[in-house]
């Protein structure tokens, strides 16, 4: 229990860490108390603070010490994720009857934000897994829910979300993977690209074409690993997100029982988009965690590193830069939490707000992490220091689950379409 989670990350900085330093720039803050303006527990209920505490503790003890190793060795940390699932993190907003925790979108955001401080890549995968479990729980019939959800919530089995194809990314509705009805099966042909977890996961939620062109012709099928005709491409070599494998998922006359179809034929695109609304909040939350961790790392570095006879924290430029980073972090956090609340309440502005949150937060938090790296100087570029991994890991958040350009499409459509 004497685990030194947060301290181990600080000692990895390799700097002399004097525990006896005094506040550098504002003596008055000693009298006012030293509450940090970026504390993520402000405004939360007692219960949410408990959820957050468990997630922070788990991140500090079980994830942060391995974050670098998982990245460098490209380890998919199955045992750690199963431990997380035992705490209820496998199906956070999936219903309890099928093994989920039944929490709200806001609770979920808080949890992923905290877990992300331990390892962005692993937390992001856990969020994708959660999204799939939710989709089956929400749109599946009782047999499907009972058949798939309990194993997903316990992470006995892992899930992947399959929408993107080599020929259709942003233009998702133009996907080509076909699913032809043959008796009591659908026969799938086609391939999916950039699938997180692909090849190592057990349950694939696949959007495929059962009807005509466009969104209305798309259905959602659950395909299990081991189904004949299901194969995988090579493991992609990525800049970040290395604790989850990414592969193409290939269907060659792959026969899937029709009972594995979620919802009706033609409902698939709708299911995919509804899943992504929550997914966007989750990914934004992961960016928040990385930015929070990076601001703390930058702050510690400024208080320790000396140049020109004084610590970097005495430089007004760096003080102001840190203040801007903190402001953007808190603004991002508020936007994500508001979007989570809107989605939970099914508000009219939920969809564009989720897009706004994803757009703003992934961009701003990437800048925050990037600036934190800059503040570290040359050390920031070394893999011995965690800040570079936060930068590399969250860079892709501006691209997946709908590029930030697609987010602008959604928002402008909301503004310019006459209702």
């Amino acid at each position, binding site marked *: 229990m004497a685990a030194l989670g947060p301290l181990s990350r600080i000692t990895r900085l390799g700097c002399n860490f004097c525990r006896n330093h005094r506040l550098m720039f504002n003596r008055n803050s000693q*009298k006012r108390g030293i*509450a940090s303006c970026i504390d993520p527990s402000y405004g939360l209920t007692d219960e949410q603070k*408990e959820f957050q505490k468990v997630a922070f503790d788990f991140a500090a003890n079980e994830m942060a010490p391995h974050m670098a190793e998982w990245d460098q060795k490209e380890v998919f940390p199955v045992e750690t994720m199963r431990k997380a699932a035992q705490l*209820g993190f496998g199906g956070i907003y999936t219903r309890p009857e099928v093994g989920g925790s039944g929490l709200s979108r806001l609770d979920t955001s808080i949890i992923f934000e905290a877990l992300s401080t331990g390892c962005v890549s692993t937390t992001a995968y856990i969020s994708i897994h959660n999204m799939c479990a939710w989709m089956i729980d929400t749109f599946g019939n009782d047999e499907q829910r009972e058949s798939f959800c309990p194993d997903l919530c316990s992470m006995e089995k892992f899930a992947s979300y399959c929408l993107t194809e080599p020929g259709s990314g942003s233009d998702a509705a133009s996907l080509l993977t076909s699913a032809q009805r043959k008796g009591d099966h659908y026969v799938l042909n086609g391939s999916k690209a950039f699938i997180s977890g692909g090849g190592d996961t057990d349950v694939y939620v696949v959007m495929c074409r059962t009807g005509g062109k466009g969104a209305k012709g798309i259905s959602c099928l659950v395909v299990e690993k081991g189904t004949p005709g299901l194969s995988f491409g090579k493991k992609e070599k990525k800049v970040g997100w290395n604790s989850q494998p990414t592969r193409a998922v290939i269907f060659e006359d792959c026969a899937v029982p029709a009972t594995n179809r979620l919802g009706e034929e033609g409902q698939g695109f709708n299911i995919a988009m509804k899943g992504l609304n929550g997914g966007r909040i989750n990914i934004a939350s992961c960016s928040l965690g990385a930015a929070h961790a990076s601001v703390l790392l930058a702050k510690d570095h400024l208080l320790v590193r000396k140049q020109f006879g004084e610590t970097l924290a005495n430089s007004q430029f760096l003080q102001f830069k840190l203040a801007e980073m903190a402001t953007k972090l808190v603004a991002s956090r508020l936007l994500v939490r508001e979007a989570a609340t809107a989605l939970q309440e099914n508000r009219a502005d939920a969809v564009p707000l989720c897009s706004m949150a994803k757009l703003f937060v992934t961009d701003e938090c990437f800048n925050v992490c990037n600036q934190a790296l800059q503040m570290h100087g040359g050390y920031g570029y070394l893999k011995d220091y965690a800040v570079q991994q936060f930068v590399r890991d969250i860079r892709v958040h501006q691209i997946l689950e709908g590029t930030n350009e697609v987010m602008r499409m959604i928002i402008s459509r909301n503004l310019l379409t006459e209702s």
Partner: protein
Amino acid sequence: MSGRVLVGVKRVIDYAVKIRVKADNTGVVTDGVKHSMNPFCEIAVEEAVKLKEKKLVKEVVAVSCGPQQSQETIRTALAMGADRGIHVEVSGKDYETLGPLQVSKIMAALAKKEDAQLIILGKQAIDDDCNQTGQMTAALLDWPQGTFASEVTLDGDKIKVVREIDGGLETIKINTPAVLTADLRLNTPRYATLPNIMKAKKKKIANVKPADLGVNLTSRLEVLKVEDPPQRQAGMKVETVEDLVGKLKEAGKV
């Protein structure tokens, strides 16, 4: 036999926080500083919950003495598996002077009131490092004590305790009712699970005042000054052993 265990949990400044001394040297800064359950108290709660899971005890009651915020600490114990909580309200000046003597009087009174079989405490708190409350509580109740426990085995109406002492490990057998204090290697506290945190919301925390228990909180101690430890001084290098002995003699060390 009620099969009831009382576990004391203390709200302390989180172990990872950098402690700062107040400008007036009367204490350390606690306003706005992150607090959490004393790590040794977490180990105590874990041991109590384990005993309940093995069906060796029937009920685990978490107790904390302090201001309103102590309820958060009790909630954490409930989320780990304690059945109910007792919050002994102590605030203001009383809380600033609250020490092992007062807390042990409270624990002893509660043990009688709740008909407890076992009291498990952390061996010490990480803020004052007193390592006294368990021992004082046992003395007030005239119960046997198994302190610095690294292994606890219930055996009928006796308890076998393996204690970590300076010379190694000491095994003792004591009668119940008894007081145990948890040392680091007794167990590894579990994470609260999300479902348990939600269940904890429904568990009851009773509010009690020290006066209701007949406890006088007056302290026999007065804190005169709190200050930072001295800054680490630079060392110096010497050429020979003779120089070293000379310097040590100068400094009055030999």
